[in-house]
């Protein structure tokens, strides 16, 4: 397994600690920041990164290990978000920050839609409109607010793991 994939395990383990013990306790209305989504979107949008799918699988598994969400829901949500980010990388590659905002916007909506659908399928009576207003919209705002710093931080990590080849 390449180093760039292996490093995702400690990265997401650390993010899970931060997410569950810190950021989940700082809600905006009832929405919270999704560190996993920010990192996945930022990682997938890096030019030289080739391990975005592997990272999304690791993120989904670690999230599911801690969360009570139905099995597979985070995996699907993060997988779809990564797919969108990769598509945006191909389409909007000249404006990476714009692509980041778009990836976070659609990623938040997708992960929340998948979580909500999965929860309703297993019998959680969560009202969709209320959840959208009280959870999804504030989460979206928080995620968009931290999209740019997350992109910059992950850009540094990507530059270390995928250094630019020296021109001869």
């Amino acid at each position, binding site marked *: 397994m390449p180093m760039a994939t292996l490093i995702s395990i400690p990265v997401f383990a650390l993010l899970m600690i931060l997410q569950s013990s810190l950021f989940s306790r700082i809600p905006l209305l009832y929405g919270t920041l999704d560190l996993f989504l920010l990192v996945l979107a930022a990682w997938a949008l890096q030019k030289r990164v080739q391990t975005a799918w592997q990272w999304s699988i690791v993120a989904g598994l670690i999230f599911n290990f801690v969360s009570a969400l139905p099995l597979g829901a985070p995996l699907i949500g993060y997988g779809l978000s990564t797919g969108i980010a990769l598509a945006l990388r191909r389409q909007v590659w000249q404006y990476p920050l714009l692509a980041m905002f778009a990836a976070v916007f659609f990623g938040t909506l997708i992960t929340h839609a998948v*979580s909500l659908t999965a*929860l309703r399928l297993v019998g*959680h009576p969560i009202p969709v409109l209320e959840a959208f207003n009280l959870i999804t919209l504030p989460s979206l705002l928080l995620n968009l607010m931290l999209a740019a710093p997350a992109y910059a931080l992950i850009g540094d990590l990507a530059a270390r793991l995928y250094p630019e080849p020296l021109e001869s």
Partner: protein
Amino acid sequence: MNTTTSRSLQTIVFVFIAVGLIALALGGYLAPLSRIVLNPIIAAQTWISQRYQAVQELVNAPQDTARLRQEILQLRDENSQLQAQIIELRQQLAETSVLSALVDFARANPENRYQAAAVIARDPSPFLNYVIINRGSDNGLRRGMPVVTQQGLIGRVDAVTAGAARVMLITDPASSVNVRLEPGRDAAVLHGQITGDLSLEMIPQDADVQAGDLVLTSGLGGGYPQNILIGQVTGVRSREQDIFKSASIQTMVDFDQIEIVLVITNFRPIDILPLLPVEEAP
């Protein structure tokens, strides 16, 4: 001889003059004169002294400033250490008071066995009201065990690992608890909501429910032991066309600030699902 006599005479005159001057000075008669003489001297002394002190300060200033800066840094350091100590002690005090209340609760309910645990995290999904505690199967925790604080029921263990457990709070939308109301003893079902509020459903229309009634677990369904306090009714909603009334309730537990909880370890939930009638396919 003459010389000796004139010197003695001079001495006597001087002594007299001196005594006279002293007597005049003691009597205050020389004050205006001394003021006239002394004032310029005092002024000159003051001026010279001030200039001297200014020069001395100028010469010693760099050393003093450096010393004072060092002292300020030391004092700031001490201050921050003391502040940190105060915060730590306040935290310990708060923890001690919580633990003391939990011990009181455990003493008041001796029929149960408890395992204390600290809340270390919340579920990362914003759709779920779960917390994670730092005790697991190694400490005797099992799935379904009720979790309480000194202020009442907060939830039950949903999943367990060796060193940690996930607790579904009663405020989770998927949570439902069979309760009874005191003093009327009417049965109802408590549901959580995504906003973290609690609502009572399935209250019979003929039930006499008032704001202020206590809500306790009924033990029905086998999911929770009976008589654990949950909260108080704050308002009742009733419409004639509905079969049941509903009510909102207020708990004493601040679910956002839970720090330490007690898991009731001698309670085993009963799975009544096999006893429920199953609809057979036609």
